[in-house]
């Protein structure tokens, strides 16, 4: 199984001289299984180059698993070339929206409506199938098994685990470890804490022992102080979760758009200096990074 990063940025694409080394495209990860089946995780702006790359082996057959429908995870989809080419076959998976009561197809079609995009979803030439996933639903895709768990983000977000021939990776999508809304002296503090612990246990159980844990680490601890509730993790919370899940390697991604290449280099240095014995191997995601499992 091979994991390749096409977009590692969070929130909004951020090209420029300060992001040229790690990359400015928003989230997109390509997982290629042992048999060559293609699974694309998220359709941020990184899915545009990913699509062009996939077109080298036409006809394209792939699965696209959407963690959630915030812009930085779907904005590249209308520029995903295989969708426009007859003969391509694309299965798109994602969660149901309980607020607007909409399935994935309705949400994704909307971003291709007249005022946003010149081509309607109906006009796509590929064979496109949408699948609304229930939480915990396991799907078999070629020689891979894809499972999901609900994460904690301001919209319904699935983390995905991909297994193939004994190798595995987990992608958190966007995730902030929940915080207790009660003070320690409130009656409900204990109950809430137990619910939070259960939730984290559920996530770690799904990700248990993966060869690669790819996780949202948009912020540093000092930045997090003013960003609680925004739905993202920090390098420390991400590492802590990877440790709890006993991941063999962790890859930090979803870099803040203001995060410069030099800052990421410094963070990488600091992480490697502070690494404990038996810690997972650590990577900072950058566009073009390929990890063979």
């Amino acid at each position: 199984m091979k994991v390749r990063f096409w977009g590692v940025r969070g929130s909004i694409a951020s090209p420029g001289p300060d992001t040229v080394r790690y990359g400015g495209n928003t989230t997109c990860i390509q997982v290629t299984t042992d048999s060559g089946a293609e699974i694309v995780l998220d359709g941020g702006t990184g899915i545009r180059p990913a699509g062009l790359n996939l077109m080298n082996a036409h006809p394209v057959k792939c699965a696209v698993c959407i963690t959630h429908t915030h812009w930085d995870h779907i904005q590249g989809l209308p520029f995903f070339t295989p969708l426009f080419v007859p003969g391509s076959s694309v299965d798109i998976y994602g969660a149901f929206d309980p607020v607007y009561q909409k399935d994935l197809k309705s949400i994704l079609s909307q971003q291709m409506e007249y005022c946003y995009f010149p081509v309607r979803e109906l006009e796509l030439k590929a064979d496109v199938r949408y699948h609304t996933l229930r939480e915990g639903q396991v799907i078999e895709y070629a020689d891979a098994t894809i499972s999901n768990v609900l994460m904690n983000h301001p919209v319904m977000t699935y983390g995905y685990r991909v297994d193939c021939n004994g190798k595995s990776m987990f992608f958190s999508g966007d995730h902030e470890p929940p915080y207790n809304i009660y003070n320690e002296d409130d009656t409900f503090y204990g109950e809430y804490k137990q619910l939070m612990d259960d939730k984290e246990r559920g996530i770690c159980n799904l990700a248990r022992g993966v060869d690669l844990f790819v996780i949202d680490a948009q912020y540093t601890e000092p930045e997090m102080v003013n960003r609680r509730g925004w739905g993202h993790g920090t390098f420390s919370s991400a590492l802590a979760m990877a440790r709890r899940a006993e991941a063999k390697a962790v890859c930090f991604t979803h870099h803040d758009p203001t995060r410069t290449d030099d800052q990421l280099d410094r963070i990488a240095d600091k992480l490697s200096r502070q690494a404990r014995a038996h810690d997972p191997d650590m990577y900072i995601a950058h566009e073009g990074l390929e990890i063979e499992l």
Partner: protein
Amino acid sequence: MCERMPAFPASVQKVITLTSDINSSPRDLVRVIDHDPVLTMKILKVANSAYFGLSRKVVSINHAVVYLGLNTVKHVALAIAAIGSLPTENDAGFDMQDFLQHSLTTAVITRALARKIRVPEVDAANYFVAGLLHDIGKVVFAQFRPTEFRGALSAARERGVPLYQTEEEFIGHSHAEVGAFLCESWDFPATLVGAIRAHHIPGTGRTEERIRHCLFFGNVLANHLFESVNAPVSATEDDMPPWVFRMFGNDFDSILGSIEGLQTDLDQATNMLTIGMKS
């Protein structure tokens, strides 16, 4: 048919106020939701819908917040608030304020009874929800079958019999059955559904789920504490099967008196109502 059922006016207004203020406390929002039977029911419906909630049934608003995320719960609440408010006057002549008072009192007492028989705190939240929702069928009747419900309400008063008996005569079903049916169709936990369905049936005190014992008796004690305008006929100590006293204590007043913090919890719940009505 309940998709369009609005929530109570005070909570609708508070949800709108709290969700418009980016600095408002999530605790305050949870508190408004978990004191409103309609908001609670609808948010639990989302959390337990077939798309989610597979791993474990979601039985409290705190659980829904951790499970679905704060922002999703907030937006679901806002979408419900956008439907409007339950009218304070209805064609059935059903007193909504009295209903809320009784539901909240039952919720608080049922949870207190759970703690008294040492139900773990995480499960006690389930008991609060059972109390809050046990009479939701009455709101459904007031909204959707007002004429028949008016008949049932007057007949119960005139004949001095419990409302659920006249409901069966006038509507064909009791509020307990309809409430349970709704909760069941939305995949709420079976124990909660069973307790709501049987909240007028004493049972044996042995074979049933504990939530059923607490809800049955919580409802009786709530009526003992505050006489309901909607359903003035309530069970007395003489109507109670012996297990009630074996399980909870010697008589209604001493049982109520022995529940630690009951008055504070009741005051807080009532406070939610009065602040809402004034604002």
